[in-house]
């Protein structure tokens, strides 16, 4: 007993050093790939390795990264969310409606746009958890609804934020004086930190893992699985709203037709980062690395003047390789 009691607290998830290594190996692999890809571009192009370009890469990671963080929760819980791309466009439009058309002040309009994302997630959650619609179908339907609503609410024309002074500062401003480090990147880092802590340390995070790992066992442990699933989708929805604000603040306008395609990039980032599509496994750090890999690839290939079509081919192959190495690793260990 005495010997048992004096043991130091162990690291949650994966016992001992071996367990810790095993748990973060996928992250290490993803991080190593990121370094290798970045090193390759640094040698291939003289323009890649510079502070300006790194900031540009981080800036372009913001939207995919924000969407991917929310989706990480949904995917760990064994779900999927296809509505995040067009949902983001809808939230951008809603931000325009709140700030420009209704003339609400920033402190009211911006949180309202973020909460609107939460509302999209809430509806997804209700469809999945209460109405038992498979997540793929429920969020596919929401993807179409959001795409249509974004066009309807904006009359299919971009909404410019010229009448909402200070709005673009949310993304393009520099909170840190004297350094060119866009606010959007700061926002991403802050929400990533919060999401990471919640996933590891909060009840929400714990149930996210347990629902994705064994939904029945979770229910038998007295947990209201339906309620928590709704909570997880709604929480992820907040990131849709935030991404909508960040992208429209960056562009200075809400573009109603730009959302489609972002959902697949975000899901790709989550998968590259080691989150299992079958649920129960994944991390925010991995997702951030996955989002960075996508940004670095896009950026580097653009700098090397590789056509957009080929960029997509390469990105697709990277996703396959990432999932394949994950499979091999699981068989070996």
């Amino acid at each position, binding site marked *: 007993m005495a010997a048992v009691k004096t043991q130091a*607290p162990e690291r949650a998830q994966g016992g001992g050093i071996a367990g810790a290594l095993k748990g973060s190996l996928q992250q290490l692999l993803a991080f190593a790939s990121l370094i290798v890809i970045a090193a390759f571009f640094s040698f291939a192009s003289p323009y890649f390795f510079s502070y300006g370009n790194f900031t540009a890469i981080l800036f372009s990671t913001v939207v995919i990264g924000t969407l991917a963080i929310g989706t990480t929760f949904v995917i760990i819980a064994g779900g999927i969310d296809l509505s995040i791309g067009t949902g983001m466009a809808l939230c951008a439009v809603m931000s325009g409606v709140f700030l420009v058309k209704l003339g609400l002040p920033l402190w009211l309009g911006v949180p309202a746009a973020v909460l609107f994302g939460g509302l999209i997630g809430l509806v997804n959650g209700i469809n999945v958890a209460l109405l038992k619609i498979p997540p793929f179908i429920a969020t596919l339907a929401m993807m179409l609804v959001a795409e249509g609503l974004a066009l309807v609410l904006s009359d299919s024309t971009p909404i410019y934020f010229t009448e909402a002074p200070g709005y673009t500062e949310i993304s393009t401003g520099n909170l840190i004086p004297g350094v060119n480090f866009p606010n959007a990147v700061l926002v991403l880092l802050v929400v990533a930190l919060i999401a990471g802590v919640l996933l590891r340390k909060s009840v929400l995070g*714990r149930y996210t893992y347990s629902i*994705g*790992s064994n939904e029945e066992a979770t229910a038998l*442990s*007295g*947990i209201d699985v339906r309620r928590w699933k709704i909570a997880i989708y709604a929480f992820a929805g907040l990131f849709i709203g935030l991404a909508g604000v960040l992208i429209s603040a960056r562009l200075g306008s809400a573009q109603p037709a730009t959302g489609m395609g972002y959902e697949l990039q975000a899901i790709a980032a989550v998968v590259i980062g080691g989150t299992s599509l079958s649920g129960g496994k994944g991390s925010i750090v991995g997702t951030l690395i996955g989002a960075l890999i996508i940004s670095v690839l896009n950026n580097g290939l653009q700098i090397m003047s590789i056509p957009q079509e080929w960029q997509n081919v390469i990105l697709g192959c990277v996703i396959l390789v990432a999932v394949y190495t994950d499979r091999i690793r699981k068989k070996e260990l």
Partner: protein
Amino acid sequence: MSEPILHITGLNKTFGPVHVLHDIDLDVRAGEVTALVGDNGAGKSTLVKCIAGIHGADSGTVEFQGKPVHIRSPKDAAELGIEVVYQDLALADNLDIVQNMFLGRERGSSWLLDEASMEKAARETLASLSVRTVKSVRTPVSALSGGQRQTVAIAKSVLWDSKVVLLDEPTAALGVAQTRQVLDLVRRLAEQGLGVVLISHNMADVFEVADRIAVLYLGRMVAEVHTKDVTHGQVVELITAGRSGDIGLARPEHAVL
């Protein structure tokens, strides 16, 4: 003989036209292992699920510690102190031992769980049950052997000041040494003063750990006997024919079926 901690009388359960449980009476006493035996389809698992609140019983009364209670959901059962260890092990593979043991009843605030406290309590519970086979309480459950998983599932059920533990075939998929460990654990639960219900197909297991044996035959409770009063053969007869000598169902000529 002490008063039963769990006293069930006249419990009936039907699924549509199928009458699965007929007027079941069952007593569970603190500090005793009650084996619940019966052939496949006799209604053992259904009875456990009625007690656990997963199925609602159609009629019958349940008294817990002398007071009539209504168990309508697993949560009701858990609040009374009735825990079930399911055959298919209700554990989440990707979570570690501590996380599984505290699943649904985490300590600390909702925003910041108290991992250190949970880890300490998990270690103490495992130690109190003399579980020594688990190296680290932070091992993911997926990395454990069948016996270790069963041990964790049982330890999870006693972590909460529980008073009655129902074990559904805890040794079904285990090897000899692991069965040994689990049976020792079952015995220790009773020694700690819990009322233990052990569902099993294995007569050797039943005779080794059970104080009393309750036999279900086609949805009827045909006998509740002390283990020392019966032989293997008699129990097997009760299971297969519902009757053994004077024990069990009345002879067909007297029976009112």
